[in-house]
């Protein structure tokens, strides 16, 4: 059989009764292994990698600077003020936890549904999950202000005779996110064991052999090894599947369980989960496009993979748009004055600019994915996925800040309005920098990670 080049074949079509090829241009497993191992075995990464990694590292240093500034000065540098007592920290936290969900969905749910195309992207989507959860974890850690007391988040016996408030969703968050991180890490690592063994067997240097050997846990590829590996992977997939739905539901409880118009709605858990998968898949596309270009993985992460992911973005984007609409409908239908005010204020108040950024990025942009031309165009999908990332960040910002800023529910705020004081959050530059910094943190970690898909 002669070798067929990737760009000569279009595998995005759906012919009934005929499977579209998952991998292009390869005749056997050995060639696939060669292609996958190439980025890790290159003597020098491509120049573009250095440029992107350099930019990411500069932004990470910026993050380090602003985080230190925050720790030494206090959380006031975020521009927090009564009544907007949290904005950037929780926005970034929710955003990053959400990003992680695509990785888990790809690795767990698509695995259980026997979606074979997931194998092209699952490993690096899982790695993205892990780095995203680390980024998310940064923000509760620094928003406590006295970072050296961040261990108070955990129920550890202490000299104060004090426990966290078990009725608070913020503590549920601690459990949800730490469980999520642990299971994601285990899932990623268990899946990686045979790959690490392959790397070990191909490695030339003694140090590489030792390192890969240590982490491949003595894998020899025997039948018994494969049998147990498959079992463990299946069990972990079953464990991770409920997490896709539960983690962001718990995160949404941070808002839904409080009695604030704009937050106190039952639609929040499914709405947050849909948003999480939406933003997560956009991030996978954002990362997959340059990765397949730079590391020559176009035959493994084919146009069909990207097409599939864009379909998921379209579906979840519609769900998110439905949720936005339903929130307004219920605000009107409930007849609750405060609820009505909260939503009118969201769309036409002093933060309407953020609201309309959110709507145009999250509801209008993904509609372009109805067209196959758009779904299969690399530059277009890259740009659209960036729009979705921006939009989903603003979604959290809008939910959190607009609901708090003009809340007519609390009597205190009503008084401040009588006095002619309009409470507002004043988003300072530190907040923006940290948001960007965490992004590049993940990007840097991601590019350092390489791709073992």
């Amino acid at each position, binding site marked *: 059989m002669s070798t067929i080049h990737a760009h000569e074949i279009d595998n995005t079509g759906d012919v009934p009764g005929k499977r579209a090829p998952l991998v292009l241009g390869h005749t056997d497993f050995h060639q696939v292994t060669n292609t996958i191992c190439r980025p890790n075995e290159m003597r020098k990464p491509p120049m573009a990698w250095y440029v992107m990694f350099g930019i990411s590292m500069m932004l990470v240093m910026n993050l380090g600077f602003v985080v230190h500034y925050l720790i030494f000065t206090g959380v006031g540098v975020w521009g927090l003020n009564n009544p907007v007592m949290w904005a950037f920290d929780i926005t970034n936290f929710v955003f990053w936890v959400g990003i992680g969900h695509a990785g888990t969905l790809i690795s767990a749910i698509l695995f259980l549904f026997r979606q074979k195309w997931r194998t092209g992207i699952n490993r690096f989507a899982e790695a993205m999950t892990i780095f995203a959860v680390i980024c998310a974890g940064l923000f509760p850690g620094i928003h406590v202000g006295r970072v050296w007391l961040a261990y108070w988040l955990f129920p*550890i016996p202490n000299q104060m005779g004090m426990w966290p408030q078990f009725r608070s969703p913020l503590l549920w968050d601690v459990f949800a996110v730490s469980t999520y991180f642990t299971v994601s890490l285990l899932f990623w690592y268990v899946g990686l064991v045979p790959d690490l063994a392959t790397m070990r067997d191909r490695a030339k240097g003694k140090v590489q052999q030792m390192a890969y050997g240590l982490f491949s846990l003595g894998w020899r590829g025997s039948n018994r090894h494969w049998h147990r590996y498959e079992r463990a992977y299946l069990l972990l997939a079953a464990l991770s599947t409920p997490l896709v739905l539960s983690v962001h539901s718990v995160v949404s409880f941070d808002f839904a369980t409080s009695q604030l118009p704009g937050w106190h709605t039952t639609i929040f858990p499914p709405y947050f989960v849909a948003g999480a998968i939406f933003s997560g898949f956009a991030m996978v596309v954002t990362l997959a496009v340059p990765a397949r270009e730079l590391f020559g993985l176009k035959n493994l992460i084919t146009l069909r993979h990207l097409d599939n992911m864009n379909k998921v973005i379209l579906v979840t984007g519609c769900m998110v748009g439905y949720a936005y609409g339903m929130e307004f409908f219920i605000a009107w239908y409930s007849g609750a004055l405060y609820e009505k005010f909260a939503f009118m204020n969201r769309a036409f108040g002093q933060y309407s600019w953020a609201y309309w950024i959110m709507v145009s990025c999250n509801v209008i942009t993904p509609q372009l994915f109805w067209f196959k031309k758009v779904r299969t165009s690399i530059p277009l999908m890259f740009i659209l996925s960036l729009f979705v990332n921006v939009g989903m960040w603003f979604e959290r910002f809008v939910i959190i800040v607009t609901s708090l800023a003009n809340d007519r529910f609390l009597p205190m705020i009503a008084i401040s309005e009588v006095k002619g004081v309009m409470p507002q959050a004043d988003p300072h530059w530190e907040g923006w920098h940290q948001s960007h910094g965490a992004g590049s943190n993940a990007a840097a970690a991601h590019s350092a990670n390489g791709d073992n898909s």
Partner: protein
Amino acid sequence: MSRFLFPRWSNALLPFVLIVGAIAPLYVSLLVAYGFSPKTLDGQYQPEQPVPYSHALHVGKLGLDCRYCHNTVENASHAAVPPTQTCMNCHTQIHKDSPRLVKVRESYETGMPIEWIKVHKLGDYAYFNHAAHVTRGVSCLECHGRVDQMEVVHRAQPLAMGWCLECHRNPIDHVRPPEEVFAIWKPTDSWTKDQRLELIKKNDIHPNDYCSTCHR
């Protein structure tokens, strides 16, 4: 294909790795519970004071009342540290040329206070009220120990939040008749448990443990 594998003896190391992994969470918990306690971090804090004032001599031997110097203790949240003038009530007559009192005389002449070092320091987010405790029968002894036996004052109790709560949740072991509060040489169990229970009822002692009791 030559395959690199670790030698068989390295399997023996596996149990150690597992044991360390299993013990690590327990270790962290114990480290936080005991290691981060003021009992460990501050111990019996005993700084050297600018003037070698001996409570053992003045209180233990000469029988000065606590309130002679710390005169605001019954009426205010803060128990005053005495001004130099209080020292000089006696020391213009007694040991007036003692070399140990050089700094006291200097302070008396210049009007600059002696810089005593605070031994019992609470966080500024904890509002402790001396008057509230002293007038209801919590003796100085309970927090400050046998000051009448201390040459140099040290911290007798940990002053940790958990330690405050112990008494707030179960005050019976720490109360006495209010008129005996300053008799710090009398141990609290000079009064029987029944007598103390009677005192709690009579003096209406019901300390609470809400956050806002101390953190306002």
